């Protein structure tokens, strides 16, 4: 099973100078768990902000989300993989970097994201089809 | 001089058995459309004959010879009273076991006449009546467990096909028991009093049972859909076969027991296996009451009648 088969193509973006509050609002409205942070300028790279970041670095510390900028808690750079990568390999990477999602990129373009949930669902579907057809 | 009264009485009781107890055997098979009603009736009659021919002797001996010393008067009165009681209670749709009525009547008549009653034999019979429903319950539980471990593992449509065959087998078993146990109980007295030859009695008895089922088939059909048939085919088989096996065992021991009560035991056994906590206490009370009163009632009536005639 390849990464491209189970990835979620719906990627939501946010500006790096937006507030964490904006990020939370976007995540709730769009029902997603991570946002890709756009680079500030040409020298900057893409990053990601996740629910984990918000909870452990803002909520837990009792900080005001309105006052924290997204770029302060963004993880950079994005961990990218090729769309043809095998799922076993993807899982190993996620374990190695201790991340819950990994991005599928092709020549600087983000094609989609593979989360733990996608891996789990994909493996179940593979089991259901096992012995029948691909 | 052949006294026709006991023979006629037997015929009437046999007719009753046909109209009431056929659905014990056929209900689930006909309800599941495994076999059509007409064919089922003849299958039923056939296996009743086989049952009484092959194993009827033992129960016949117990009822006709071992309980008490039979004589013509005892036979006549007890069978006549039994026939009336059975017909009346069927008319009023009261659940009554022919075994209990007959044994009660025989004992009552015997006691009134002053013949010695083999208490040992009688006690064995009473014990069988008490134990058999529980035996059926136990056998059904065991059978259900076995089915869970074997039949359940098969693919679905195979289970369906096998179940159809199994249900037919258990229906045949109940029909066989109706001959070997129930009909044998009725015929035992007249055979052992020398009124009629065993072979003829078995044949005529089976025919009368079949007649009863055919003539009153609307009654049979009425009861289809209740009792076991209310269960799903899977549970129904466990209940019916457990009951049938139990009655078969008691028949081999020569003990007359009621298939109907055993089936109730079987159904309860399946209910327990499925973990159904609610037991219908009111139903159990009704059954226990009938179980106690029936033989007592027939005993008293015969006793009173004979003593009454004696006074005159």
């Amino acid at each position: 099973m390849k990464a491209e088969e189970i990835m979620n193509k719906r990627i939501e973006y946010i500006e790096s100078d937006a507030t964490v509050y904006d990020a939370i609002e976007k995540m709730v409205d769009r029902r997603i768990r991570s946002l890709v942070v756009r680079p500030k300028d040409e020298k900057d790279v893409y990053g990601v902000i996740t629910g984990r970041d918000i909870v452990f670095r803002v909520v837990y510390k009792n900080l005001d989300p309105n006052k924290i900028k997204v770029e302060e808690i963004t993880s950079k750079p994005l961990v990218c993989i090729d769309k043809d990568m095998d799922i076993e390999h993807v899982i190993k990477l996620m374990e190695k970097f201790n991340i819950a999602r990994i991005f599928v990129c092709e020549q600087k373009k983000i094609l989609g994201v593979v989360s733990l949930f996608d891996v789990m669902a994909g493996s179940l579907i593979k089991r259901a089809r096992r012995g029948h057809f691909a | 001089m052949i006294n026709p009264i006991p023979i006629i009485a037997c015929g009437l009781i046999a007719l009753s058995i046909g109209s009431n107890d056929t659905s014990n055997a056929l209900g689930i098979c006909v309800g599941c459309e495994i076999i059509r009603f007409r064919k089922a009736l003849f299958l039923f009659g056939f296996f009743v004959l086989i049952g009484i021919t092959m194993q009827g002797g033992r129960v016949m001996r117990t009822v006709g010879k071992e309980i008490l010393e039979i004589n013509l008067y005892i036979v006549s009165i007890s069978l006549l009273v039994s026939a009336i009681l059975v017909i009346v209670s069927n008319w009023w749709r009261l659940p009554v076991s022919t075994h209990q009525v007959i044994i009660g009547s025989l004992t009552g008549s015997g006691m009134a006449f002053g013949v010695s009653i083999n208490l040992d034999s009688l006690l064995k019979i009473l014990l069988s009546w008490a134990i058999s429903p529980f035996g059926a319950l136990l056998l059904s539980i065991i059978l259900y467990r076995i089915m869970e471990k074997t039949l359940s593992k098969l693919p679905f449509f195979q289970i369906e096909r096998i179940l159809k065959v199994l249900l037919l087998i258990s229906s045949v078993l109940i029909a066989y028991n109706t001959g070997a146990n129930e009909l044998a109980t009725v015929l035992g007295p007249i055979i052992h009093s020398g009124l009629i030859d065993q072979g003829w009695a078995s044949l005529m008895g089976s025919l009368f049972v079949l007649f009863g089922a055919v003539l009153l088939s609307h009654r049979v059909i009425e009861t289809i859909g209740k009792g076991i048939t209310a269960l799903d085919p899977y549970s129904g088989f466990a209940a019916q076969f457990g009951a049938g096996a139990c009655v078969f065992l008691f028949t081999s021991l020569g003990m007359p027991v009621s298939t109907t009560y055993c089936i109730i035991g079987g159904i309860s056994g399946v209910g327990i296996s499925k973990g159904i906590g609610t037991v219908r206490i009111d139903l159990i009370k009704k059954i226990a009451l009938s179980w106690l009163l029936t033989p007592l009632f027939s005993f008293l009536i015969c006793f009173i009648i004979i003593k009454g005639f004696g006074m005159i």
Partner: protein
Amino acid sequence: MLKRLFFGGKIEQEVIEKIKRHIEILCSACETFKTAIEKRDKKMMLGVFDLEREGDIIRRNIISNIYEGAFLPFLRPSICKLVEIVDDAIDLVEDAAFEYTDSELDNETKDDCIKIADMNLKMCEIFLIAFESLLSGEDLREKNLAIRIYEKKIDEIKFDLIKRLKTKEVKSFWEGKMISDFIYHLTNISDLIEDASDYLQIINVSLR
């Protein structure tokens, strides 16, 4: 009669083959639908109508066979219900096909619809596998769960799709209604396949 019992199951076998064929028709309908949208081929979409008709004929055959005496009476209502759900699903594909031929979709909507149609097809395929598993005695639970996973994914796409469509302008009431009905029918197919899969489970446990 006895022959029927021991060697038979012949009429049951026929019904089983027909049910399998019926499910295959559902799969074909979904596949035709998806390919037609991908290629923007409205003529190809008409193939769905033929499949729906074929499905109807088979369904009627199955139901009459069942009431002619296939299977224990205890099982018949569940099996009939299963066939009717599959038939309803095929009807929905037909409805969506009809509405597609009468509407124009923008690219973003079209992409989402292709995703949904693709997942519908995958759901059907797993449902067929599930039915075959029922026949062979394999466990159905994983297949049932896989179908539910797809259904939830489709629900997510549906939610966003409808949100986005609400902002779209339509030239007339009927144009809007056509698009709305199209989306409604397209997204409901997966609900029915999920229902059918649940019914398969019900049938599976009814004799154990």
